[in-house]
């Protein structure tokens, strides 16, 4: 469904991601793990159309979407829940959802909002509340719900459990499973490698702008040196 080939994105002279390649097949949950600064956010932002790559290609369902703007990506079924959520704190929950559905016909938006409320009942009672007053968990739900308003076929999530207490993080991991069961394809960047590998089908490990490891989730989970690969610890003394 989603294929990334030799993708490179630069900030000035610095290549934040270098010749990255990955594949996400329909119905899969693929995770992307690695330390901060590895380029995971840059990669998702580039795929979603927020950043322009300097090299490489992105394919979505066979179409070359490399230079597409975010609104085009949304219309083609790809949505991103950004890092730190980036909900509009000055807008109400309802307005946030409406903005999420801006690429949809105005007549459809109410119905889509109802679907989102079904998924996240806690938001239902807070539609009129300013989004800045939501708790961390509710904010995460809003961020995901907002992306769902675009009726995506593939959902990209950037560190959805960031800043959440373990109990709330659990909710998110369960949600990922629920979404997958509902037919959604997911590409998730996560800090909590252990937990996400338990939910995902496959995983990629990124470090310093490159993919250093990939494989089936259970295999990665069982690896002795996962922690080392993750953080760059080699067995050779420095």
């Amino acid at each position, binding site marked *: 469904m989603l294929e990334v080939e030799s993708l490179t994105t630069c900030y000035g002279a610095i290549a934040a991601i270098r010749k990255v390649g990955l594949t996400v097949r329909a119905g899969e949950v693929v995770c992307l793990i690695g330390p901060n600064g590895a380029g995971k956010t840059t990669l998702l932002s580039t795929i*979603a159309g*927020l950043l322009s790559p300097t090299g490489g290609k992105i394919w979505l369902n066979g179409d070359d979407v490399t230079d597409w*703007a*975010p*609104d085009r990506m*949304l*219309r083609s079924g790809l949505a*991103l829940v*950004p890092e730190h959520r*980036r*909900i*509009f*704190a*000055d*807008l109400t929950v309802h*307005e946030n959802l*409406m*903005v*999420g559905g*801006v*690429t949809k016909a*105005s007549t459809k938006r109410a119905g889509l909002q109802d679907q989102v409320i079904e998924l996240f009942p806690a938001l239902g009672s807070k539609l009129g509340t300013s989004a800045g007053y939501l708790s961390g968990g509710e904010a995460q739900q809003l961020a995901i719900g*907002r992306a769902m308003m*675009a009726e995506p076929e593939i959902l990209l999530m950037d560190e959805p459990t960031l800043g959440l207490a373990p109990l709330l993080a659990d909710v998110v991991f369960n949600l990922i499973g629920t979404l997958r069961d509902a037919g959604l394809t997911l590409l998730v960047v996560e800090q909590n490698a252990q937990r996400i590998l338990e939910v995902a089908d496959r995983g990629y490990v990124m470090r310093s702008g490159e993919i250093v490891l990939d494989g089936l989730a259970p295999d990665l989970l069982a690896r002795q040196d996962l922690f080392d690969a993750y953080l760059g610890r080699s067995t050779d003394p420095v």
Partner: protein
Amino acid sequence: MTELLQQVVDGLGRGGIYALIALGIAVIFGVMHLVNFAHGELITVSAYAAYGLFAAGWDWWLVAPAVVVIAGVTSVVIEFVAFRWVRGAPDFTMLMTSFGVHFLVQAGFVMYVSANFRQFPRPGWIFETWKVGGVSLEVYDLLVILFTLLTLGATYWVLQNTMFGTSLRAAAEDFDAARLMGIRSDRIIRGAFALSGLLAGVAAVFWLMRSGQAGPTAGLSPMLKGVLAALIGGLGSLPGAVLGGVVLGLAEVLLISHLPAGLVGLTDGIVFLLIALLFVFRPQGLITVRRAERV
């Protein structure tokens, strides 16, 4: 007491115009982080348009709405021709660009219309005064207050209840997140300029009613007052801009009426001094806008 009331109404009359201009400037600043010095040109254009329409035989009832529309359209045109190229550029570049646009438009008028001021008729009846409970109020001031409230109300309604308004507020808060949601940067920026232009148009109608003339520098003074008002209110805050405009208008009128005759000419100077003092004690303006900086 009645005198004070008269002055307050007078001040609100001025303040309303400043508030509308300041709001237009704040709208664009919120979305693009640009102080639009060319905003005043909208008033200049409006002035010349009004002059032309009067010459063609129209009267104020038709000219007023026409001016509002013309201002809105001109604003979008200016964005398309000039500001489109400097989106995302550093502040210095954008400020100079807007200054450059200001001069070009002004020069354009000098070249193709006239360097002199042209007069057009002012509607006499609005400068009559009504007596309300012993207080003499100018119809003009009441009209300005009325229309300012209507315009602000309409703007508020648009911002709160339309998809465009919601998108604009979202883009003003986090432009990239708004893009991510599918909001098109082109459209939202143009929309902001259009809204800003319409606001300037309403302000222009009343400004021109009072000045009754069109000239290349017609827009300079109101633009400056509007920018100052937006700054007083806290750059980037929409309610702040309105508040700043009202405060500025009131301050001006109160000073003019209370200063000894010889110093009246220094009103602007004193207002400026007060604004400067405000900044010394409250640099962020009257209303603080939350704007984080990533280290």
